[in-house]
């Protein structure tokens, strides 16, 4: 049997671990640049604050209802996620880390009672060790485990654990599940299914498999079989190494000059190269792009993009020079740029670096030493301590994060303080 373990309102829960007084209080977390709401506590949901709502539209409501507002603190969420996942890994034989706050687990227990107590124990262990509350859905397939998890969350009397085992119970729950809520059913597929009279998960489970295959490809068919309890989507133990790395963001404000844009680009590239080196890879192709805000109809629009090729490297200064020089001729004075980014392509493992005759081994060694020093300094003293000079001019493009919580677990100067007074 499989289980889907999912952290409840994960970003909010992370903030509450270090601000316990916010328990039972309405809390929301905002997206990058404090644009819209991406996480809500149950109390905020009950107040009718919609997911994805732009903050400027509901600022009055938030203030009136005394909602606690946080900018997103991804270093914190990433660390807390890793703690939760490691706790899973120490407890059950196989874990697939599915997203920042969800994992599929393979359970070892053989009957329903044993599974139930195994999951109950896991749930309280994660809560005790990390402070994060989770819900667990148990079922024979991944698609059903998702449904079971959803049920566990919506029905507090389950105590956070629910098994979708025997057929009777399964049909009842599937009948109460809208078809769009299913894993793998996108908005478009949902509309198409509704047109064909399929509105609940139970309808889809009972649909004709060959019809589904014809209309919705093999992926749709898999969903049907999974709903019937036949596992089609296996547990992926080690996620494949990334084939591309992207780092792109909207600026805190629109940019009209080249220098701040180049500086933003360098900073985003720095993050991409950090990921590249973490997975011990080199890149030999890079796409660099920038564009204006398409939603501002009255602004003149411009989008530029350039593809650069070179011999495999992970050396930031060289990549930064290429990116900045590559995009410079395409930049147009006077446009109001909203976003820029880089995409690293053609990744190869560093161990497969093919030595060219004209590669100077000593040069490569020096470059690697520079990168290692930079990484060590930044790991110790915080990100961006040691940086390329061209990434320093942060004033215009830096993310707006006015309400970000401290780096409780990622920055020495921001760890929690306990009063002994």
């Amino acid at each position: 049997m499989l289980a889907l373990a999912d952290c409840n309102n994960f970003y909010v829960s992370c903030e509450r671990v270090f601000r316990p007084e916010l328990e039972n209080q309405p809390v929301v977390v905002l997206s990058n640049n404090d644009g819209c709401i991406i996480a809500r506590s149950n109390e905020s949901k009950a107040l009718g604050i919609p997911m994805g709502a732009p903050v400027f539209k509901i600022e009055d409501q938030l203030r009136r209802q005394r909602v606690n507002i946080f900018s997103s603190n991804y270093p914190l969420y990433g660390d807390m996620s890793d703690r939760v996942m490691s706790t899973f890994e120490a407890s059950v034989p196989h874990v697939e880390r599915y997203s920042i706050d969800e994992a599929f687990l393979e359970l070892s227990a053989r009957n329903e009672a044993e599974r139930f107590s195994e999951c109950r124990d896991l749930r309280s262990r994660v809560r005790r060790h990390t402070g994060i509350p989770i819900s667990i859905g148990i079922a024979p397939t991944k698609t059903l485990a998702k449904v079971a998890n959803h049920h566990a969350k919506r029905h507090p009397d389950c105590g956070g654990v629910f098994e979708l085992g025997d057929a009777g119970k399964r049909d009842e729950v599937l009948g109460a599940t809208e078809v769009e809520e299913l894993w793998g059913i996108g908005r478009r597929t949902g509309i198409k299914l509704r047109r064909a009279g399929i509105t609940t998960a139970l309808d889809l489970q009972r649909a004709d498999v060959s019809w589904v295959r014809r209309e919705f490809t093999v992926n749709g068919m898999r969903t049907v079989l999974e709903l019937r309890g036949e596992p089609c989507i296996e547990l992926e133990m080690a996620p494949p190494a990334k084939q591309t790395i992207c780092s792109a963001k909207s600026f805190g404000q629109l940019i009209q000059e080249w220098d701040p844009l180049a500086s933003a680009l360098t900073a985003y590239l720095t993050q991409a190269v950090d990921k590249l080196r973490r997975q011990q890879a080199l890149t030999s192709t890079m796409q660099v792009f920038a564009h204006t805000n398409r939603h501002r109809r009255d602004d003149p629009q411009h989008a530029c993009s350039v593809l650069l090729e070179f011999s495999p490297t992970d050396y930031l200064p060289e990549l930064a020079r290429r990116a900045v020089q590559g995009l410079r001729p395409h930049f147009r004075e006077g446009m109001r740029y909203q976003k820029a980014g880089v995409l690293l392509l053609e990744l190869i493992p560093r161990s497969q670096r093919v030595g060219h005759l004209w590669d100077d081994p000593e040069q490569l060694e020096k470059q690697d030493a520079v990168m290692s020093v930079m990484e060590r300094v930044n790991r110790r003293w915080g990100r961006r301590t040691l940086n390329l000079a061209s990434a320093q001019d942060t004033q215009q493009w830096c993310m707006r994060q006015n309400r970000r919580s401290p780096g409780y677990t990622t920055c020495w100067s921001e760890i929690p303080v306990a009063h002994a007074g």
Partner: protein
Amino acid sequence: MLKSIPKKLKTDGSISAIYGMEESGSLELPLFSARVAAGFPSPAEDHLESRLDLNQHLIRNPSSTFFVRAAGESMMEAGIYDRDLLIVDRSIEKRNRRVVIATLNGEFTVKRLVQDEEGIFLVAENPDFDSIPIRVDSDFSIWGVVTYVIHQV
């Protein structure tokens, strides 16, 4: 790199198994950068062990361990001084007489947890400070157990 294995393999039994090579596995071979010491090989080479690691000594369960800064002097006799770094493990059982991080009315506090016939108390380790009795209506919970103090001398 061995990629494909013949589908039908006749064998006289001397081959018990054939394994495909893992393509993702990698072996670091420093192609150009290896510097070979020209003198005598180190007599310690065969006895290399990893150097002592403080993390290993101080942190039993990394995923439940957090660092917290102490502020104030009420725990001096327990060896905790102002600005000291506390290592806090949430997975350890919150037993009587342990030094704990508690949350009281929304604030983190470090004290010794004492439970006796008179009730639950957060006890200071400094005669100048009073113990705090935990009342039924106190907004109180135990956040973690302090396992080590790092103090700069």
